[in-house]
Every structure is written in C-alpha cells, then in structure tokens.
C-alpha cells in the first residue's frame, strides 16, 4: 500500500490528462442519459423571461467569444427560442468583438432557421462597439449616438424595430450572455441599477461566484450558470413545451458529470497520498 501511494505521489501528470480525456470522450460517444434537475437560480431566470409582456423589446448582449462558446452558446440558443416564442422583439448588442459572430450564428439558427422572422422588424443585430462599459453608459442616453448603423451597415433610423427606441429606457428587459469583462456586472452597474430595468444573465461557470451576490440582492433576476445551467434551461424549455428537444448543453451533461466524479476521486486519492507521505516523514 505504502509503495502504491509513493508511486501515486510521483505519477506523471500526463496520465491524469489521458484519463480525463477518456472519461470525457466516452460519454459523448455513448450517452448515458443521466437526469438533469433545474435549480432555483435557473428557474428564476426562466420565470423572469417568461413574464416579459408580449411585444416588449428585449436587449440581448453577446459578451462572449469562441473560447467560451461551449458554455454560453447553448444558453444564447435557448434564450432566443424562449423570447421569440413569447413574441418578444430582440435587439442584439455585442461588447466583445467575437460576440458579433456568435450572435450571427445564433440568429441564423433560431430567428431565420426555426422561426423565419423578419430582420429589422422582429429582431435586429446592432453589432459590436468598442468601449466596454462606456458603450452601456452611452446607450442609457442614446442609441443613435453609439450605434449609428447596425451590423449590416443599415442606418439605425431606417430600422423599423428601432422606431421609438431612443435609449435603454425604452427597453423592457436586458439579458447579458457574459464570459467576463465587460459583461453582466457592467450591465448591472451602468444600466440595470441606474435605470431600474429588469436584467438577467447567463455566465461561464468561473464567474458564478462573482455574480451570485447580485442575484441574491435582487439586482439580477436569476442566473444561468455555465453549461449545467444551460442544460437546465433546455430542460425547462422542453417541460414547458417551448421546444421539443434538449440542445447541445443537455447532451453534454453525461460527460460533465462523469468527469466531475473522476476529479473528485483524484482529489481524494491525492489527499490520501499527501497525508500518508506526511505521516511517513514525521515517523523518520
């Protein structure tokens, strides 16, 4: 036993990488169908979106890029499905340069492919503007001053959906798809809190601890937390007959669960090895 623990202590970390790779790949190829139960945080976000009045204009900000696509993109797809089913009209902004491509991909799939909606009437993509929180602060005063044209270079004054939308005050709800700075926190600081606009968010797992206090204090209406949050939201869409099947996040949850189990196992074995080594050192 002591010999085994000594070997563990000097184990080449590449074996651990290999084991993680295997336990992630296998459930992706052979799904197990482990259950996913929505948590209160995801249910709160779902309810907040469900309660937006029909025809209300909703701003969805794509503040992420390809590096966090597996976590955030399934949320974007699920949120757009929910909003368009509700009959809301969607205005897209991007605080991240890559967000423009993410938003185009999501709109192509959901707005054009699944719902057959009309650009400029049912939804509009204003695109990316550099400036981080300065852009948010800017649109609290005026959209046209910050977005003279949309992502297709159409003048903002010629877009029917933007008629009567002078600033963020004319928006009923904000949803930030956020992978860091600028993102959810900045939307709360510069738009949601000063203008008292209801806001919700979907964030990467690593941000959850940082954003949770804003949810607990009521500054944000629920939170979709990482890939598991996205899977829970997809589950809620299926339960509420908004969409017939679960999406990419739900299908990836088997791999996530098995990988977590293996990592927990590694932590336990690593600790046993550490304490055994310490005991041995004290002995001699």
């Amino acid at each position, binding site marked *: 036993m002591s010999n085994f623990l000594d070997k563990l202590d000097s184990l080449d970390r590449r074996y651990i990488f290999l084991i993680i790779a295997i336990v992630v790949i296998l459930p992706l190829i052979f799904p197990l169908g482990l259950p996913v139960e929505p948590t209160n945080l995801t249910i709160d976000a779902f309810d907040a979106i469900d309660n937006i009045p029909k025809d209300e204009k909703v701003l969805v900000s794509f503040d992420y890029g390809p590096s966090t696509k597996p976590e955030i993109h399934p949320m974007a797809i699920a949120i757009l499905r929910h909003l368009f089913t509700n009959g809301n009209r969607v205005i897209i902004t991007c605080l991240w340069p890559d967000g423009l491509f993410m938003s185009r991909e999501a709109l192509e799939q959901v707005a054009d492919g699944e719902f057959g909606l009309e650009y400029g009437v049912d939804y509009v993509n204003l695109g990316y503007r550099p400036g981080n929180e300065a852009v948010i602060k800017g649109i609290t005063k005026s959209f046209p001053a910050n977005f*003279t044209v949309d992502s297709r270079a159409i003048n903002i004054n010629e877009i029917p959906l933007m008629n009567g939308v002078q600033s963020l005050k004319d928006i009923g709800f904000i949803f930030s798809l956020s992978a860091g700075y600028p993102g959810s926190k900045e939307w709360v600081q510069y738009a949601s809190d000063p203008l008292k606009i209801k806001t919700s968010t979907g964030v990467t797992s690593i941000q959850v601890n940082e954003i949770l206090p804003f949810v607990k204090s*009521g500054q944000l209406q629920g939170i979709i937390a990482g890939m598991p949050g996205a899977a829970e939201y997809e589950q809620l869409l299926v339960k509420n007959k908004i969409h017939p099947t679960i999406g990419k996040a739900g299908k990836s949850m088997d791999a996530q669960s098995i990988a977590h189990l293996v990592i927990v196992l590694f932590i336990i074995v690593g600790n046993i090895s550490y304490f055994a080594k310490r005991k041995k050192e004290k002995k001699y």
Partner: protein
Amino acid sequence: MSFGNIFGAWVTVFLTLAILSYLYKDNPFYKIAEHVYVGVSAAYWGTIAFWNQVWPNLFGRLWPEYDPATLTGFNKFWYKIYNGLTWFSSSIFPENGIPGNQEQNLWYIIAFLLGLFMLARLIPSINWLGRWSLAYVVGMAAGLRIYGFMSSNVIAQIHGSILPLWGNGMGIGDTINNLVLIVGTVTGLFYFFFSVEHKGIFGKVSRVGIYFLMISFGASFGFAVMGRISLLIGRFNILIEYSKEQYGYATIVLLVVMVATLLILNLKKPEPEEEIVE
C-alpha cells in the same frame, strides 16, 4: 459539403490538436498554433474596431455624406481635407463623404486628435503627446468605474445584506440562510480589518471569517473545474463531429500524423536529463 467547410474543419482540428499537444510537452505544432492565434486575434480585433467604431462613429461624424452643391463656409475647407484623404484610400474615405446618414459633429475632432496623440507614442521625439490621451482615458475610466462600483457593488450590496431573521412568513430555512449570510459578511469584513491585531475575540471572529473565505475559494475552484471541463467537452464535440466521413476523417488523420511526428521528433532529440539540485 463545400470545399470551404471541409477546409475549415481541417484547420479547426489541426489547431485544436496542436494546442492540446502542449499537454504532452512543448512542441512545434503548439508553437505554430500559438503564433497563429496571437497574429489572427490582433488583426481581427484591429479590423473590427476600425470598421465598427472608428469609421462610422468618428470619420462618419466628421465627414458625413454630403451634396457638393450645398457646401458652404468652413465645410468647403473641411471637405477639401477629406478629398485629400480620398486619394489616400477610396474605400475608407469614399467620394462625397462617409455613408450612413450621420449628422456632422465637429466636437469629434478632439477625439480624433487624442487618437493621433496616442499613435505619436511610436515617434520618440513627440511621444510625450501620448500622455494627454492616456490621461484622458485614465480619468474617464476612473470616473466611470467609481460611479458604477459605488452604486451597484457597495450601496446596493450593503442594502442586500440587511436581511430579516424572522417575520413575513419566513421559514426556519430562510432564517438560517439569512443568518449564515450576515455572519459570513460581518466576519469576512473583520478578517480584512488590519488596524487591530487579530487576537482574543477579534482573532476568533476573524478566524470564522477565514472559514467563510475558504468555503468561497472552494466553491470558486469547483466552478473553475466545471468551466474547464465544459470547454473541453466543446472541443471534443467538434473533434468527434469532424472525424466523420463527410469531413474526410479530419480528426483521425491529423491525430495519427501529429502523434507520429511527435514520436519521431522525440526519438531524434532525446529529453535532456533533469539536473539534480541538492
């Protein structure tokens, strides 16, 4: 399936495997992917920023589209400068102004000059001009952030942590939750109060604060692991998708080629023996 899609799949697979190959050890595939990433990111960011911000919002407001017959006074001179720029690049400065129907706003000359001053940092004799632009950016950012931070992170969070322990139909669970939140907040703040030595009652309270902080770090670590696994799943989903016949078995072919190349490189150049430090 178009050639573009198949080619894109092969590039995606190559770059993904090249980056993952670093887990084995530093190697030429990883170096290629790293350099491509840095170069493409910089070019992409620069292009997007120029065409989405500088061109419509700065140039578009300084020289909006005009009718040559209506130009009067200062604008006659102003658009002569523009016509000079048209010679420099007709795609950036098209004839008769920047399209988009913006209103002319000459206050943006200040922003234009500050932008030029920032570029002056590249010329040693006038690089001091760049300090003015930086001073503006620092001042503006500090002012903007203090406002947002004070209202949302400080005042709203203090308000959010003033919680009832009973009444209004609260159950025992709510009471415990609120109690934990209040105790965690207060003891956490005690830990970061360094003007008094952490001894006696103060030491015990700050010790409780440390436990709360440790639980918070543990939760952060758990979320970080979850996030990284999610990203790995995303990559593997792509690799599995592109291993299909319609993509020419891109994943399988490239994996075999890369593993074989790494093995050959490893055989040719054995790892140096680690130095023993006594």
